[in-house]
């Protein structure tokens, strides 16, 4: 299979290790700034909703978390597929690094949703299509993580967990369309089309800020975790033992 040269270079572990070490802080610090701004804007600047009052402000933590929970799963499954097809070690490292972060954001989406549900729907939990499929997403992440580490041979764990990740992709359209296919207590999408969102700009911009901030935050964390994965997987490689010699800082 043909791959352009820069992709080969990026997929080489030492090269990726160096780039990600340099890039991670450039993603994490802007992410922290955007999240701080978004929190302030969402809690203070945005006007109260005419139906939900100040309760609607939970949207600012719930939607970015829920969005990331599915985005990260898609990325994890794509990385796992690349690993399965091309036997690319770096791809498996990316999938392994993405899983715990994805699980955390899924947990956040479920918990913030439950707390939002109490005052609005009168219940923390309902076996509703949207809620149930999001809970299945959490189980897919946890299943991926435990399956990957349950083999004596790490490559077998990568392959088995990768297969689970790829099969689990069927859950993504179910989550997305659940509020349209079935009658759900969950409300429909708020920002579906950017040209005609169903909220005003004063409410929308903090949300967009937080979605961008959360995404950059995830990207920075992912790079840090991929670094750890790459070092561990390449521990016998010459470039790793080179930078781990005593007296050499950084690496």
């Amino acid at each position: 299979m043909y791959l352009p040269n820069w992709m080969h270079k990026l997929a080489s572990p030492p090269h990726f290790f160096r780039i990600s070490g340099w890039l991670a802080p450039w993603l994490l610090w802007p992410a922290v700034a955007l999240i701080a701004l978004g929190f302030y804007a969402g809690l203070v600047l945005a006007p109260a909703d005419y139906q939900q009052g100040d309760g609607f402000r939970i949207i600012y933590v719930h939607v970015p978390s829920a969005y990331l929970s599915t985005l990260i799963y898609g990325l994890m499954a794509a990385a796992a597929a690349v690993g399965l097809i091309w036997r690319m070690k770096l791809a498996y490292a990316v999938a392994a690094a993405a899983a715990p972060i994805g699980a955390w954001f899924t947990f956040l989406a479920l918990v913030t949703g439950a707390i939002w549900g109490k005052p609005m729907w009168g219940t923390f939990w309902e076996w509703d299509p949207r809620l149930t499929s999001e809970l299945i997403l959490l189980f897919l992440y946890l299943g991926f993580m435990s399956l990957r580490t349950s083999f004596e041979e790490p490559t077998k764990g990568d392959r088995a967990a990768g297969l689970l990740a790829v099969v689990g992709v069927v859950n993504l359209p179910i989550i997305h369309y659940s509020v349209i296919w079935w009658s759900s207590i969950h409300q429909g999408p708020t920002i579906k089309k950017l040209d005609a969102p169903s909220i005003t700009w004063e409410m929308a911009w903090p949300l967009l800020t937080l979605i961008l901030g959360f995404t950059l935050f995830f990207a920075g964390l992912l790079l840090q975790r991929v670094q750890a994965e790459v070092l561990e997987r390449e521990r016998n490689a010459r470039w790793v033992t080179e930078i781990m010699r005593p007296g050499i800082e950084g690496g």
Partner: protein
Amino acid sequence: MGGYAPYVWSTFGITLVVLVINVITAKRRLRSVREQLKLRVARDARRRSKE
């Protein structure tokens, strides 16, 4: 917050805690892998110098 304060503050608080946990665990994992590898490389170097 019009009666919604406990709901709003708890969701923002939990979110902040989870974000901080993620920063700490990612940093800690990278550091522990690095330390393990440094120990391993140093041990191998000692063994080689003895031979």
